């Protein structure tokens, strides 16, 4: 571990102007476009957005797992002050799984179906340490126990298909936790689980982040998960962060109309018998993005100014928003 990681002034992760593009036959697809955020030690960032908003690609970019035709075309990813983009594969592999770990979306798919749980966990341990087979197995068992898995010894001998979904996801999270990483990127890991197991996993993950000082990026489309778990939230739309700030402030007083729309479309906020609210229109096709604000076509506050692309502005020191008309009920009220 470097000295820098102990120093609280250097954040665990700093992403600056990250741009990841997919060069497809139909044209260049800017999946992630100018994304910047910081995650300090022991803090949890919720990365929220619809399908295709670029939140998963952001996670994959940090992990160095973007495959052709995708490519990081610009920006910096600083992990404990070290630049990750352009790092040699061998050097990056030292960090992957060891200091930076990822938990994937589908617990059914992330475990190898023909390998027993112990074989997979031992392999993950020994990829980064000189531990003996026996030591590695003990570490695997202890980590499973830490994730609240009953009788971990028997789970170790199981094949993935013999475990329930919740159990499998906890095994996947345990694999991510094996080396007590400094940063975990969780890509919608609880989406496929039922709410009781989801709540349990969330509380365990939160506890682990606090205890070990692990920084966490929780990618999700579920605002209620973010509300309960994260310290900070960043809302992505069409490859860009449109709003960012402390989770309570953003959810209570959303500045960007898209954030407001997301919160408004939560069914729990509706009165009984009332029609469910939704954001009209669809996410734009990234290949044929109109110039100007990407959300303009669906926005109620749209005005002539929105033909230009809005820049990030900070209404106060903690919050950032990418909108010409932040935090206003309607544009007419302002100009009337």
């Amino acid at each position: 571990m470097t000295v820098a990681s102990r120093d609280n002034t250097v954040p665990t992760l700093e992403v600056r102007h990250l741009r990841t593009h997919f060069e497809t036959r139909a044209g260049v697809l800017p999946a992630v476009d100018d994304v910047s955020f910081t995650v300090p030690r022991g803090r949890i960032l919720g990365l929220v957005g619809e399908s295709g908003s670029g939140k998963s690609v952001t996670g994959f970019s940090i992990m160095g797992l973007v495959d052709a035709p995708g490519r990081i075309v610009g920006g910096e990813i600083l992990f404990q002050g070290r630049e990750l983009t352009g790092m040699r594969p061998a050097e990056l592999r030292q960090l992957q799984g060891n200091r930076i770990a990822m938990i994937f979306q589908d617990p059914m798919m992330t475990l190898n179906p023909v390998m027993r749980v112990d074989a997979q966990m031992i392999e993950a341990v020994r990829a980064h340490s000189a531990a003996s087979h026996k030591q590695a197995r003990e570490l695997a068992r202890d980590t499973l126990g830490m994730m609240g898995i009953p009788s971990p010894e028997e789970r170790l001998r199981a094949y993935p298909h013999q475990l329930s979904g919740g159990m499998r996801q906890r095994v996947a999270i345990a694999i991510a936790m094996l080396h007590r990483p400094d940063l975990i990127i969780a890509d919608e890991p609880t989406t496929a689980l039922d709410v009781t197991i989801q709540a349990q996993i969330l509380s365990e993950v939160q506890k682990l982040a606090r205890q070990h000082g692990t920084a966490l990026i929780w990618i999700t489309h579920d605002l209620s998960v973010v509300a309960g778990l994260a310290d900070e939230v960043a809302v992505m739309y069409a490859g860009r962060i449109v709003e960012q700030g402390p989770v309570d402030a953003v959810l209570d007083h959303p500045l960007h109309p898209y954030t407001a729309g997301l919160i408004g479309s939560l069914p729990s906020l509706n009165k009984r018998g009332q029609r469910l609210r939704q954001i009209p229109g669809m996410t734009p096709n990234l290949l044929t993005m109109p110039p100007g604000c990407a959300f303009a076509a669906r926005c109620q506050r749209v005005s002539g100014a929105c033909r230009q692309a809005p820049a990030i502005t900070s209404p106060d020191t903690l919050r950032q928003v990418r909108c010409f008309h932040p935090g206003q009920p309607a544009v007419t009220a302002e100009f009337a």
Partner: protein
Amino acid sequence: MSAIDNAASTAQADPQALRRESPWRRVAADFFSSRTAVFGLVLLAILVLAAIFAPLVTPQNPYDLMQLDVMDARLAPGAASGTGTYSYWLGTDGQGRDIFSGILYGLRISLTVGVGSALIAGIAGTLLGLLAAYAGGRVDSVIMRTVDLLLSFPSILVAMMILAFLGKGVLNVVLTLVILEWAYYARAARGQALVESRREYVEAARGQGISNWRIVVGHILPNCLPPLIVIGSLQVARAITLEATLSFLGLGVPVTEPSLGLLIANGYQFMLSDEYWISFFPGIALLVTVVAINLVGDRLRDVLNPRLQK
């Protein structure tokens, strides 16, 4: 721990049950649930055992010239030998060889050639297929165009060309069959590896910082095996018939090591003079062997095909 999870996991708590549930054991259980497949497997086992223990089972070593009696030539099935010590159950050929003994010794050659070539071709083809899938680009193109080229020629023609060049011999036949067959495995292995390498568990393994070599051999290869096993089992049968064809045409194994195909060829000239047994019984043996292998192979295909699994 929540009560929900405990309830869900009690069914899995028995360690005995866990061990029985490995993927391969499930396949085995599925396999044995088919009566025809078990019949094929038993038949195949009998044939293999008979071939292995041929010297103990047969009354005569048909290639030890000292044991042959030319006076016994072309005897009908069931005839007693000249010395009266045993009878020729399936008759004798033109040199007084016991057909039954000849079949078991021939089966040895046929099975060795079939299994040997399928194994070597399987290993070589799988590795080349994985290499093509993993390396991509020019390596992929070169390997796969070679595969296309090989598969676009009729195999019997290519085999005759190679053997005409190499000359007769068991090893040469094996080599020829390997050259002909690796392409099937390579194509299947590449396709399967490309599918598997897109799976999330491979992505997850990469995210754990596990080296590429370990991912290919430890994670991707085991998941590619089921279709390759099916191809292998059916290719053994194909190799045996192809070898029989080549030997029948006089291009395969030498007269000193006759396979079933050569035995059939030996009796061919007597077919029209009512001495049918010299060709007929080796032919039946070949048929039974190939059918037995195909019964096993077909069931393996059903059991291992992910699309047919519930």
